[in-house]
């Protein structure tokens, strides 16, 4: 993609801080009805890097992830306050179309969720939504997306078969291919590996490393080893008391956060004292 090329040409290091953050979140509060789920989150998600959100379950990391592409809009009675800037523009700004936002900020879920249709149609679904009609063009997009998801070789002969007939790990990669087919700028992954077998986990982690050159990746995981393996940056979330809003405790380069956390609570968590 042109931006990536431009970066390399101008010699900016891929993860340099000089580059503006992809997401710039400022003082975000999030509510389910009257209950405040997230409080005062301020964080910058770095471009072309993998950022991991960790924390004990129920700490709001998934909720926060879903604020980034406004998936939370689907929950009746919820609302967000504060700003979430994507390339400098507020995704919660007046009139912003969450539907188009989600095309740019794709999402992978915990449970592999292929549609009950063929493998081909699963991947072609997104491009078709956005107006691609020509068969040849669709074929190309499908092959490319499956290729980027490292699934092409396994499924190229069984494209008309139902997506649900694949194994769990394959299904998850199919879902990744499905998202890649709409060329998102950001990929949000909500515990993508918790429902699949270890071999497939390996494949997906490899895939993330390949993809991050071109796509900004945010992954929620409760597996700290995974966070340490795949991410460049890590954010630690914590809900300290039941009924209180979850907060961002610490955010730093993964290497720093896991070796010398600044916050006591982070240290307790990563050393396994709770959670």
């Amino acid at each position, binding site marked *: 993609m042109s931006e990536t090329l431009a970066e390399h040409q101008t010699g900016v290091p891929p993860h340099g801080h000089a580059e503006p953050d992809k997401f710039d979140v400022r003082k975000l509060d999030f509510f389910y009805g009257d209950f405040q789920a997230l409080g005062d989150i301020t964080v910058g998600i770095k471009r072309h890097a993998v950022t991991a959100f960790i924390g004990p379950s129920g700490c709001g990391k998934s909720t926060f992830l879903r604020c980034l592409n406004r998936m939370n809009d689907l929950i009746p009675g919820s609302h967000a306050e504060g700003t979430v800037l994507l390339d400098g523009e507020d995704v919660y700004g007046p009139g912003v179309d969450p539907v188009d936002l*989600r095309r740019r900020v794709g999402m992978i879920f915990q449970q592999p969720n292929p549609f009950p249709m063929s493998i081909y149609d699963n991947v072609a679904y997104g491009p078709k939504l956005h107006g691609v009609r020509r068969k040849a063009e669709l074929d190309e997009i499908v092959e490319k997306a499956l290729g980027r998801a490292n699934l092409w070789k396994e499924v190229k002969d069984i494209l008309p078969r139902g997506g649900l007939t694949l194994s769990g790990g394959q299904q998850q990669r199919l879902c990744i291919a499905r998202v890649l087919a709409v060329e998102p700028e950001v990929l949000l992954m909500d515990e993508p590996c918790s429902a699949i077998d270890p071999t497939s986990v390996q494949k997906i982690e490899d895939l993330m490393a390949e993809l991050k050159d071109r796509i900004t990746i945010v992954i929620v995981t409760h597996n700290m080893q995974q966070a340490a393996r795949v991410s460049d940056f890590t954010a630690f979330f914590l809900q300290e008391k039941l009924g209180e809003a979850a907060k961002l405790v610490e955010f730093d380069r993964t290497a720093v956060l896991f070796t010398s956390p600044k916050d006591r609570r982070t240290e307790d968590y990563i050393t396994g004292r709770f959670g």
Partner: protein
Amino acid sequence: MSDTGGRSEKTNASASGVPPTRRRELVDKRVTNALALGVIWCFALATVAALGSLLLYVVINGARELANPIEFIFSWPKGVNAEGGIWPTIQSTLYATGLAMIIVTPIAVLAAVYLAEYAVQGRLVSVIRFAADSLASVPSIVMGLFGLALFVEAAGIGFSALSAALALSFLMLPIVMRTTEEAIRSVPKYIRWGSYGLGASKWQTVSRVVLPAALPRILTGLLLATGRAAGETAVVIYTMGTSLNAPISPLEGGRTMPVHVMLMAMEGINLKAAYGTALLLVIMVLAFNLTARYIVRRTRRMQG
């Protein structure tokens, strides 16, 4: 049954130190259990026997009439006692029911889409649900008089397949609505998220992912409701009339199979025709039912 029985036996055997009253309690408990379960078995068997005897009766008596099925199905009733075939009643039944299905399907499915996907719990939704439940429980004779008053007389459509279809669609509406809503709700949330996550709008998600996924169960509901409509008597008798006619235009009246059965039985002259028509009607309705079950089973196999 057997495993609990086994368990209490074991208790009994090792109960040598237990006082006699306690032992009798255990025996009583076992006897009561066996008796009660026996009664439950009898109830279930009685239900099955009721179905069996009903079907058997209709089949035995109707089979004679259906000895020459082609003639019985495709020829017209002749003479004083409506002997011969029953083709016009079959055509009337299929016409009115098919038309009702065409009318009710889009409305019921979209209504269910609203309830399952768009509606926010509130006063309006509970009013809609109450109305649907009420509609489902309106006695069919009342629905028939309603059709007579509104479609046949006030709207001036007359005794016709269209009037019957409109009245029948009110009968089918709550059934199709409920089964479709359940079908839509049974589509996993995750699948919806997958679509939204790709930048699909709500309608795109509903129309391209949710409805296709729910289609088999929607079809099942539709078939069951259509079967119900095809067997309905009281609604059509006041909306389509009783004249023996094979309707071509929706404005023509006719006599459906259940109405024919009823008239033959009431008139009592040609009971053979009543049996034959009843058998055909039962076969038709069972075909709807069995197709519906087949669809469910096949989908379950494919998705599970």
